[in-house]
C-alpha cells in the first residue's frame, strides 16, 4: 500500500481550516468595518421595505409650503410678515404645538428698511417705508404668541451664537460623550430665536445620503438640545424641560412629561417609515386663505416645512422613498405615539456574533461529512432562519437584528468548507484511481509470475520418453495443477542402467514461492542421487539425501513452508526398493494378486519441520508385476460439491481392482484419475493432484 501514499481523510483538516475562517469572520464582524455597516443598512432598509410601519395614530399635520402656496403667495422665501400671518392663522385653530422646519438665519430682505435700501428710495418714500412695521418684529411677535418650535441646526465649527434650548435633566449617568455633539449652532436671527418658546435640533446624520436615524437628544457646544420632535412634544405637553435617562455612558431613553421614548445609546432612534400617502397635510395657501380643514389643525402638532420640489428639501428615507424633511419629523412623532420606535440595543451585536459563531460551528462540523445537497440545505436553513428571526424581531419587537452580516459570513464560510470538501473528495477519488491502477498492475505482475511459476513447474517435469526402451519397469505420472500454481512435485530418472530414481512430494502453500521451493528441492535430489552401491547402500544413500535436502532446503526456507516427500531407488534387476519418506502419505504397493501393502518405515517429519532431523532409509522387495502407487493429497483430499473428501478408503478400493483388470502403470494411473474426476464432479480442484505409478515387470 505504499505506492498509493496516505489518502487524506479530509474532515479533520477541513474543520481546522473552517475554524480559522470562522474566527476571522467573527473578528471582522466584531470590528464593524464600513463595509459591514453598509451591509447592515442594506438589510435594515430591506426590513423597512418588507415591513413598513402602518399608520395608526396621526398626531401631526404637515402644513406644506408647496407649489400651490408658492403660486398664490410668490417666490420663496416669503416676507416674514407672511410667515407671521401663517403662524397666526395656524394658531387661531389652537394646535398643541407648531414646528417650523425653516431656519431664518438672516434678517428679512422684505423688511421695509431693507426694501428702501434695495430700491434706492427717495427720502420721502424711505420715511414712509420706515413708518411701516418691521416684518421680523411682526414674526417675532407671532412666534412669541404661539407654541412654536424653531428648528435649529448643528454645525461642525463654532459660531459664537447663543444656543437657546429648554432645560435638560440628565439622570442615571453621564452620556455626554456618546450623544451627537455639534460645535456651533445655526439658528434663526436673534430676534426670532429669542422670541420662540421652543428650539429643537433638526440635524440628523445621513448615511450614504439616506436618513435612517434621528437624534432625540444632542449637544451643541456645552448645551443639551432636544431633538425637534421631542421639543414639539414638550410644548404640546406643557412640560418645562426634557429628561434624559442614562445608564452610565449610554442613553436609555428621552422623556417629556409622561412620554418616555427609548433610544439607542447615542440618544437617537431609527425611524420606522410608513409610505407618505395617508398623512394629513394642508397647503399653506389654504391655511392663509382660511380654506383649511379646521380638524386637521386643532389640538394637533403642526409641522410647517417646505415641500415644493423647487425648494430642494428632499431626503431619501430608509424605506427608499424620497420625502421632504418635514415628513421625516412627522414620521418620528407618529412612531413615538405608536410606540413603534425602532431600536438597536448595544447587545444586539453580541446576539449577531453568537448566531454567527453557533451556526458557523454547526457548518464546520457538518459540511465536511454531509453530501453537497444536504450542505446546501443546511446553509439555506441557516440563512433563512436568520432572516426570519430578524424580520420577526423587526415587525413584532421593533428591534434591529442584522441578519445580513451573519448570513454573508456563513455563506463565505460555507463556500470555503464546500470548496475544501469537494477538493478533498477529488483527491480521494484520484488516490482511489491510483490505487485501482496499482492493483491492476500488481495483478498483472502476479499473473506474470504465476505463468513463470507454471513454466518452472512443468518445465522441470521429466520428459515422458525418459525411460524409452526400458521394459523391466513402467512409469506413469500425471500432475493436474490447481487453478493457481501448486506445490506438487515429482520426478523420475535412471541413475544408471539398473537403477530408477523417483520422487513425489508436496510443498505446503501455493504460488510462486512453493513452486520455486519445489524446483530447488528437486534439483538438490538430482544432483546428489547419482551414486552407486548395493541395496543397503541405496537405503543409506536415500536417507542421507533426505537429510541433506532437509538441511539445505530449510536454510532457503524464508517462507516457512514444509515439504512432504517420498523418494525411492528401485533396482530394476532385483526389485529391491530403497526408500525414505519425509511426512508423505505412505505409498501403496498393489500386488499381482490384488493384495494392498502400505510402504511404511524409513520415515521422518516433512522437510523443513525439524531442521536437523537425521533421516534413515529402508528397503522393500517388489515381486514382478507389483504396482507401486504414489499420490499427493490432491487425490485423497479431493472434495465433491458437498465438501466430502475422496479419502484413502475409496482409493484403496480402486487400487484393489487394478490387477484383476491386468492394467499397466499408465492405465492404472488413468483409472485412478478417472475415479477422482467422477467423485469430484464439476467441483474446482482445491489443490494440485498428482498420481505416480511404477510397475516392476521383473528383472
Amino acid at each position, binding site marked *: 500500500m505504499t505506492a498509493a501514499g496516505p489518502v487524506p481523510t479530509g474532515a479533520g483538516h477541513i474543520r481546522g481550516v473552517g475554524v480559522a475562517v470562522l474566527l476571522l469572520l467573527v473578528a471582522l464582524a466584531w470590528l464593524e468595518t464600513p463595509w459591514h455597516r453598509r451591509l447592515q443598512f442594506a438589510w435594515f432598509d430591506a426590513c423597512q421595505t418588507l415591513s413598513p410601519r402602518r399608520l395608526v395614530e396621526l398626531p401631526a399635520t404637515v402644513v406644506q409650503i408647496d407649489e400651490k402656496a408658492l403660486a398664490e403667495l410668490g417666490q420663496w422665501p416669503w416676507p416674514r410678515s407672511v410667515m407671521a400671518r401663517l403662524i397666526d392663522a395656524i394658531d387661531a385653530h389652537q394646535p398643541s404645538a407648531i414646528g417650523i422646519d425653516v431656519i431664518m438665519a438672516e434678517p428679512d430682505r422684505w423688511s421695509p428698511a431693507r426694501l428702501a435700501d434695495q430700491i434706492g428710495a427717495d427720502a420721502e418714500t424711505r420715511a414712509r417705508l420706515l413708518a411701516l412695521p418691521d416684518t421680523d418684529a411682526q414674526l417675532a411677535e407671532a412666534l412669541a404668541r404661539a407654541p412654536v418650535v424653531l428648528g435649529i441646526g448643528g454645525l461642525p465649527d463654532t459660531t459664537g451664537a447663543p444656543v437657546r434650548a429648554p432645560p435638560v435633566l440628565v439622570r442615571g449617568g453621564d452620556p455626554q460623550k456618546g450623544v451627537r455633539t455639534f460645535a456651533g449652532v445655526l439658528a434663526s436671527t436673534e430676534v426670532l430665536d429669542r422670541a420662540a418658546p421652543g428650539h429643537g435640533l433638526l440635524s440628523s446624520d445621513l448615511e450614504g445620503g439616506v436618513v435612517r436615524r434621528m437624534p432625540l437628544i444632542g449637544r451643541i457646544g456645552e448645551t443639551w438640545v432636544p431633538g425637534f420632535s421631542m421639543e414639539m412634544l414638550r410644548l404640546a405637553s406643557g412640560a418645562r424641560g426634557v429628561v434624559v435617562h442614562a445608564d452610565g455612558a449610554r442613553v436609555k431613553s428621552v422623556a417629556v412629561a409622561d412620554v418616555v421614548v427609548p433610544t439607542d445609546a447615542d440618544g437617537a432612534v431609527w425611524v420606522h417609515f410608513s409610505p407618505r400617502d395617508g398623512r394629513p397635510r394642508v397647503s399653506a395657501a389654504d391655511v392663509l386663505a382660511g380654506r383649511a380643514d379646521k380638524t386637521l389643525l386643532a389640538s394637533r402638532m403642526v409641522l410647517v416645512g417646505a415641500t415644493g420640489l423647487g425648494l430642494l428639501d428632499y431626503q431619501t428615507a430608509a424605506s427608499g422613498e424620497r420625502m421632504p424633511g418635514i415628513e421625516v419629523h412627522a414620521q418620528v412623532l407618529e412612531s413615538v405615539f405608536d410606540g413603534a420606535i425602532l431600536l438597536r440595543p448595544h447587545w444586539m451585536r453580541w446576539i449577531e456574533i453568537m448566531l454567527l459563531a453557533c451556526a458557523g460551528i454547526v457548518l464546520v462540523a457538518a459540511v465536511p461529512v454531509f453530501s453537497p445537497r444536504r450542505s446546501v440545505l443546511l446553509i439555506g436553513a441557516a440563512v433563512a432562519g436568520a432572516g426570519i428571526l430578524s424580520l420577526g424581531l423587526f415587525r413584532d419587537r421593533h428591534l434591529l437584528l442584522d441578519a445580513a452580516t451573519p448570513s454573508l459570513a456563513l455563506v463565505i464560510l460555507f463556500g470555503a468548507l464546500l470548496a475544501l470538501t469537494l477538493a478533498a473528495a477529488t483527491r480521494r477519488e484520484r488516490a482511489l484511481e491510483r490505487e485501482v491502477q496499482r492493483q491492476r498492475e500488481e495483478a498483472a505482475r502476479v499473473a506474470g509470475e504465476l505463468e513463470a511459476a507454471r513454466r518452472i513447474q512443468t518445465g522441470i517435469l521429466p520428459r515422458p520418453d525418459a525411460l524409452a526402451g526400458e521394459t523391466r519397469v513402467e512409469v506413469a505420472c500425471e500432475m493436474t495443477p490447481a487453478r493457481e500454481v501448486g506445490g506438487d512435485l515429482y520426478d523420475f530418472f535412471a541413475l544408471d542402467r539398473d537403477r530408477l530414481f523417483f520422487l513425489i512430494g*508436496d510443498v505446503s502453500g501455493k504460488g510462486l514461492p512453493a513452486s520455486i521451493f519445489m524446483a530447488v528441492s528437486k534439483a538438490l535430489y538430482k544432483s546428489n542421487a547419482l551414486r552407486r552401491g548395493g541395496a543397503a547402500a541405496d537405503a543409506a544413500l536415500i536417507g542421507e539425501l533426505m537429510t541433506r535436502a532437509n538441511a539445505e532446503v530449510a536454510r532457503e526456507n524464508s517462507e516457512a*513452508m514444509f515439504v512432504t516427500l517420498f523418494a525411492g531407488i528401485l533396482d530394476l534387476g532385483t526389485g529391491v526398493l530403497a526408500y525414505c519418506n*519425509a511426512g508423505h502419505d505412505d505409498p501403496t504397493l498393489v500386488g499381482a494378486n490384488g493384495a494392498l501393502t502400505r510402504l511404511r518405515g524409513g520415515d521422518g517429519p516433512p522437510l523443513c*519441520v525439524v531442521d536437523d532431523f537425521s533421516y534413515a532409509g529402508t528397503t522393500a522387495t517388489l515381486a514382478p508385476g507389483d504396482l507401486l502407487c504414489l499420490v499427493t*493429497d490432491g487425490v485423497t483430499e479431493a472434495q465433491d460439491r458437498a465438501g466430502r473428501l475422496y479419502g484413502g478408503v475409496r482409493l484403496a478400493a480402486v487400487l484393489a481392482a487394478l490387477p484383476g483388470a491386468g492394467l499397466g502403470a499408465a492405465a492404472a494411473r488413468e483409472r485412478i484419475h478417472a475415479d477422482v474426476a467422477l467423485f469430484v464432479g464439476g467441483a474446482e480442484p482445491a489443490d494440485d493432484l498428482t498420481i505416480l505409478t511404477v510397475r516392476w515387470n521383473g528383472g
Partner: protein
Amino acid sequence: MDFASRRLADVVIAAPAGRIDHSSAEDFKTRLAPILEHCTEGSDRVVLDFSGVEYISSVGLRVLMLAAKQVKAQKGMIVIAGMQPVVKEIFDISRFNYVFAAFPGVRAAVGDLSTQALALLEAG
C-alpha cells in the same frame, strides 16, 4: 474455529476446536502466539488439547510446525493431547509425531509435564 486456554500452575492448556484449515489457521496462529511467547525454558509448558479439533489441513500443520520451531528455539516444552482419530491419522501420515510428543488425553500430558499441575488437575 473456537479457542480456549486455561492455566494449571506452570502448565497452559490451549484448546482449539473445530477445523483448522486455510480459513482458520491464521486465527489459530494469532491466538497461540501470546501463549508460545512464555513457553520458554523453566517457564510455562504448553499442552495443545486437540480433543475438539475435527480436522487439520497442511496450512494448520504449518502453524504447528512454526510453533514447534519457536518453542524449540526457546528451549520450552510443548506437547499435544487427545487427538481425534482423523487428526491422529493426518498426524501419522505427515509424521508430525516426530515433531510433537503426543498423549491420548490432557491428564496424561499434564502428568508428564508437571506434578504440581497434575495435582491441581486432580483436585478439580
